[in-house]
């Protein structure tokens, strides 16, 4: 990273830390934790052969004055370093160098619990060099049968704008997908000649306490995406042909899961399965098992194993041979498609992981440490053995959360 980039990152991190401290000083002296007000700081890390992501994050939620109105705010920074050709490293850096990028994300949330009803809403704005995303959503949930059942519905809308960096000076132009030539692509408006991607996301969740030690849930998501969904930087991997994916995608994922507590063993067993299918011809199966163990009164240890397997999209070709064309890629005309995207190729992965949570309630009983009540520190590590060109990935997470 350049010295300027280092300074910018250091300034942002310092600002984050100062903001978190200021919030803590502001609300902290209120004394013993009473409500659900909470500040959480997270540091997340992702590393694979050619890409590294550092992601500090701070979130604050506060009841105003109680659960009938809960307000929240969050800030997240994505610091991405990549040497991958597919990330545009060669174009952006002017050579075969590591490419750095920052993504800033701010989120505002509002929630309300009114008897058996829970309402929520959010707005999120995310910006980076070549991408702007605005997302909003609402949710409503209802407790039924003496709170044995919870039924929730959510709707989210993403309104995104794509760009691509065209030289090492950072000049950018709108990206409307590989089938639209640059002169026909506009940074406003809707439709084929615009860089606008919209996503409608519907969610339905059903949770049911089946027994005093068993909680079952079933979640289904449907997403409808319209707009450019190909990467502007992969022509180097395609012999000079622009990557071209279909503009429309319909996606469904269904996720049944169970949490089963075994009190004598201080264990919770959590089997989890996700089945995904879309109209690009892709399917994935993802079984997962989590075992939560309370190894001490205030210490939780969790082990995790996840297997993930996906098929390829209808337009993916094993030989990687595509033809250049300016027509839209559709199921009726797959000859117009071209891809070098690992996301639409068949591959699988194995991900073991471990998490340790230390709840501060134990030490909060000591004199002068009452303010730690309800707080915790959480450390997580996952290792993804990915059978694709990205190779294996290391995924870490450190969180500190304090109630006030």
């Amino acid at each position: 990273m350049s010295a300027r980039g280092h300074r910018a990152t250091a300034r942002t991190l310092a600002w984050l830390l100062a903001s978190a401290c200021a919030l803590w000083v502001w609300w902290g002296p209120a004394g013993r934790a009473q409500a659900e007000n909470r500040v959480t700081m997270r540091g997340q890390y992702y590393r694979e052969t050619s890409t590294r992501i550092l992601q500090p994050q701070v979130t604050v939620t506060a009841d105003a004055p109680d659960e009938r109105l809960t307000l929240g705010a969050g800030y997240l920074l994505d610091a991405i370093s990549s040497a991958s050709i597919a990330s545009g490293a060669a174009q952006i850096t002017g050579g075969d160098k590591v490419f750095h990028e920052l993504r800033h994300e701010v989120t505002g949330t509002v929630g309300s619990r009114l008897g058996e009803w829970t309402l929520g809403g959010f707005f999120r704005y995310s910006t980076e060099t070549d991408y702007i995303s605005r997302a909003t959503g609402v949710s409503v949930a209802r407790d039924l049968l003496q709170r044995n059942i919870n039924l929730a519905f959510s709707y989210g809308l993403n309104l995104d704008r794509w760009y691509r960096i065209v030289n090492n000076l950072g000049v950018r132009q709108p990206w409307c997908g590989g089938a639209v030539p640059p002169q026909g692509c506009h940074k406003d408006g809707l439709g084929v000649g615009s860089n606008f991607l919209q996503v409608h996301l519907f969610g339905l969740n059903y949770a049911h306490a089946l027994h005093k030690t068993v909680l079952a849930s079933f979640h289904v998501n449907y997403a409808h995406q319209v707009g450019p969904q190909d990467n502007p930087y992969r022509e180097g991997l395609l012999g000079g042909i622009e990557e071209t994916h279909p503009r429309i995608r319909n996606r469904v994922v269904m996720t049944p899961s169970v949490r089963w507590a075994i009190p004598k063993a201080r264990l919770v067993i959590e089997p989890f399965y996700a089945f995904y299918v879309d109209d690009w011809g892709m399917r994935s199966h993802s079984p997962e098992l989590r075992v939560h163990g309370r190894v001490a009164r205030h210490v939780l240890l969790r082990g995790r194993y996840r297997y993930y397997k996906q098929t390829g999209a209808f337009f993916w070709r094993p030989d990687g041979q595509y033809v250049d064309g300016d027509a839209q890629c559709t199921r009726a005309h797959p000859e117009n498609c071209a891809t070098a995207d690992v996301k639409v190729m068949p591959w699988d992965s194995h991900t073991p992981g471990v998490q340790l949570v230390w709840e501060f309630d134990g030490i909060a009983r000591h004199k002068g440490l009452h303010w730690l009540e309800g707080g915790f520190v959480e450390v997580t590590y996952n290792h993804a053995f990915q059978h694709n060109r990205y190779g294996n990935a290391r995924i870490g997470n450190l969180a500190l959360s304090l109630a006030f």
Partner: protein
Amino acid sequence: MCKDGRARGEVAVVFAALAAITGLASGCVTVTPAQREQLSKPEMNPATDIAEDVWHGHIEAARHGAMGGHGGAGGGCGCG
């Protein structure tokens, strides 16, 4: 929903099977508030994993063909 007929069939079959299992399993079971000691523990609360799921959802959006149902902003993170 999906234009692919096979995909539509698979979604319908899986959805119906899971709905049937859930319906049969639920029956008339009622757990009273006094019996909820285990259910109230943090490790039994799916909400405790939300932040972690959002982070994994972000990774999956950049790496997987499937979506995790987590939402997540961005997508043009330049790490493809």
